[in-house]
């Protein structure tokens, strides 16, 4: 980077900065007559700081109640810092930077760091919690009904909405008639006064619970089957919709050998701390593992595992093509039209402008779905309008062209808008001077208008590139990354790295958050490098033309 960006420059060049560090004693305040305290400023300041204090107090109570002292300390320090910053007359740049920076740190930097830390773990399906969680999960899922286990009458209830609320088992002990409520957290007894039990032993009403009727319960039967209520001797599971049994765990953890033993088959799975799972001698792994640090293993897999690295680099190349194509095409078309309409002799430019930017006014998420349907091979508008029979999203190159066309339609009004704005900021005297000097329109455009446009719009083009590099909506709402080659279901022809990552994290094949975080760090590194290069070029350009 050039040095013009950086560092403290003489205070004479910084109009917003008071000469606080000039070495004058505090009594010199009266001499600084160029920065008086105005009444309006004071009132605004008092009101805003009062608001900050109010919010801080409101936020403090739940923190105290929950005993989250670190959170409370952060809150107190932040509030005190804000008060100091806006009551002191120093640190003027910070007064302008801090409001946005606070949000940036809390809701952008912190989640990003959190994500980065998961890139070095195997966090994902089967590796979500601690080792103890995994052991509990293994034991409860191995519960089997054994001869002589107790059968309970079962009612299925919830505290929330009957179709979505978390499920609770209400069971009646056949011997004692006691009613208990159970969920994944365990079983606890209910007061007999609070429940109504039918003669068959089934609970028909309970204070605070909604009992699901048969239709509602059968609609959620997979959830009911999967609900396991841990009990001291094993666990409680449903058997149909009206009976439950208390079974015994077949598999148990033995701390002595740090392994899980199956009491029926005698097989043992030994804990492997490196991969965070229990592995048997024959290599079989239990599905429930725990989260461990795997170091740079995820990164080396992306670079060296041929199953991942090959498609990864293919996706990377298309990702660049997509981002450059989207940005370049929209900029060229937008600028060309802006130039065409930017003329003092032009009438009706307002009408053109209003109609032109309509794609921008339309909600893009909806228009992406509309475009997908327009490219539909059976009854889409594009095929029927031109009498074609192209399966647009079925072939790699037609899908790519279609996606780029959609991007062009969505993006060029924006480029048109900003190019028009930048063109209006260029003094007309400059272009007039070139034409007086005998330059052709093309020469004048090439040596005056374009460089000035680029100075104004470069940061915007870089931002547009970065945005399109990760434009998940553009792909996810149209092709969903497809078409997929038959031998490779994880990378489609129009997949961006981000949609590939999204599929890794939230796809049907199971969540791999650790791997997804790794790929997102690669994305970050790539975009950051490209942007840093173009950024430094922009600086140089600005030095030349300013």
């Amino acid at each position: 980077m050039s040095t013009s960006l950086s560092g403290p420059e003489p205070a004479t060049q910084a109009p917003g900065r008071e000469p606080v560090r000039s070495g004058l004693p505090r009594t010199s305040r009266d001499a600084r007559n160029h920065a008086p305290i105005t009444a309006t400023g004071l009132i605004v300041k008092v009101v805003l700081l009062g608001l900050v204090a109010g919010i801080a107090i409101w936020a403090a109570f739940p923190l105290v109640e929950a005993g989250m002292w670190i959170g409370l300390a952060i809150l107190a320090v932040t509030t005190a810092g804000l008060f100091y910053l806006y009551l002191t007359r120093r640190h003027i740049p910070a007064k302008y930077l801090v409001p946005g920076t606070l949000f940036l740190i809390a809701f952008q930097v912190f989640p990003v760091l959190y994500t980065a830390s998961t890139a070095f773990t195997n966090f994902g399906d089967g590796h979500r919690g601690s080792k103890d969680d995994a052991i509990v999960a293994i034991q409860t899922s191995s519960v089997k009904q054994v001869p002589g286990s107790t059968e309970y009458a079962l009612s299925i209830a919830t505290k929330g909405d009957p179709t979505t609320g978390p499920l609770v088992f209400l069971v009646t002990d056949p011997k004692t008639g006691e009613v208990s409520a159970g969920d994944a957290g365990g079983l606890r007894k209910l007061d007999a006064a609070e429940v109504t039990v039918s003669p068959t032993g089934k609970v028909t009403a309970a204070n605070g619970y909604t009992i699901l009727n048969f239709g509602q319960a059968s609609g959620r039967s997979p959830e009911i089957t999967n609900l396991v209520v841990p009990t001291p001797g094993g666990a409680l599971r449903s058997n149909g919709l009206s009976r439950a049994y208390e079974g015994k765990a077949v598999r148990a953890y033995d701390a002595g050998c740090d392994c899980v033993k199956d009491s029926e088959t005698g097989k043992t799975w030994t804990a492997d701390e490196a991969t965070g799972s229990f592995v048997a001698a024959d290599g079989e792994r239990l599905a429930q593992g725990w989260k461990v640090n795997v170091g740079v293993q995820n990164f080396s897999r992306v670079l060296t595992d041929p199953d991942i690295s090959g498609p990864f680099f293919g996706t990377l190349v298309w990702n660049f093509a997509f981002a450059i194509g989207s940005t370049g095409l929209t900029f060229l078309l937008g600028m060309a039209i802006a130039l065409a309409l930017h003329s003092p002799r032009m009438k009706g430019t307002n009408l053109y402008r209003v109609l032109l930017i309509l794609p921008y006014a339309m909600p893009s998420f909806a228009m992406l779905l509309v475009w997908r349907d327009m490219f539909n091979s059976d009854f889409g508008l594009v095929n029927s309008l031109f009498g074609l029979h192209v399966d647009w999203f079925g072939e790699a190159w037609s899908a790519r062209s279609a996606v780029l066309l959609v991007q062009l339609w969505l993006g060029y009004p924006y480029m048109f808008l900003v190019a028009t704005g930048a063109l209006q900021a260029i003094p007309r005297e400059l272009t007039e001077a070139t034409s007086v000097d005998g330059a052709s329109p093309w020469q004048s455009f090439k040596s005056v208008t374009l460089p000035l446009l680029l100075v104004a719009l470069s940061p915007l083009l870089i931002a547009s590139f970065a945005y399109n590099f990760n434009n998940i909506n553009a792909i996810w709402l149209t092709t969903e990354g497809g078409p997929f080659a038959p031998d490779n279901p994880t990378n489609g022809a129009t997949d961006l790295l981000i949609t590939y990552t999204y599929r890794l994290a939230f796809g049907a094949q199971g969540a791999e958050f650790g791997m997804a975080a790794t790929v997102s760090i690669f994305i970050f590194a790539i975009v950051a490098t490209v942007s840093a290069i173009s950024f430094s070029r922009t600086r140089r350009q600005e030095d030349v033309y300013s």
Partner: protein
Amino acid sequence: MTTYADAPVANRNATGKARSRWFAQVGWRHLVGVLAVAFSVFPILFVLSAALNPLGTLSSTELLPTGASVENFTNLFSRTAFVHWFLNSLLLAGVASFVSIFLSALAAYAFSRMRFVGRRVGLLTLLLIQMFPQFLAIVAIFLIFTTVTDLWPAIGFNTPWGLFLLYMGGALGANTWLMKGFFDTLPKELDESATMDGATHAQVFFRIMLPLVAPILAVTGLLAFIGSINEFIIANVFLTNTESKTLAVGMFGLVAGERNNNFGMFAAGTLLTAIPTVLVFQLLQRYIVSGLTAGAVKG
């Protein structure tokens, strides 16, 4: 466009000459304008046609309207919580765009006009942070907001305020650079002379800089507004109650299952969603069209 400008000039008679000169100087501009408008408008025409289509299916919709039925609109209001979605989106996008523009204008002013330790690092950091898409951290965000919902339900899941706070996290990165660029184009002499005349840094910012960049504030505000209306991925995680959804989440659900049959309703909703953005654009049109720093240069 230069090919048009260099087109051979017909010289058979005076009228032809005048006409082709008109074409070379102005006419081709209209041709470009008309073609661009056609490209812009035809998918919207298709949406309009689908919204008015009495059958309400995708397969029966053509480019030009085949009927004029309001059935899709009445269905949209009676069968879905469209009104809730609409108001949620309007509130969220309105507040979020206004506040985020203000926050980034503050930061842009500091970066453009002041010199301080960490300025260069700050600018670079902003650029880098913005390269990391916020939604990629969605797992972390989800876990963070699970805690937030426990502590302060008013700013947790299923409220517009939680989403608002999250969007503010991206405010600085998104617009500061753009606005700094436009602050940089304002002559420094303006605020220097104001400072000499006794203005405080706050007065320079609110009375001189902000009015001068009002056009670009309007443009970026509009972009932020449209961006919030269209945000789908994060809102989809945050808003699960039918009545707390935004337009993007609600309408996506409308065509997620039955795309062909609900297409008419979906198109009707798309048109209604476009109304606030088109309105905002029309209101700000004056600022967008007027010269960015015209007054400043002459003053």
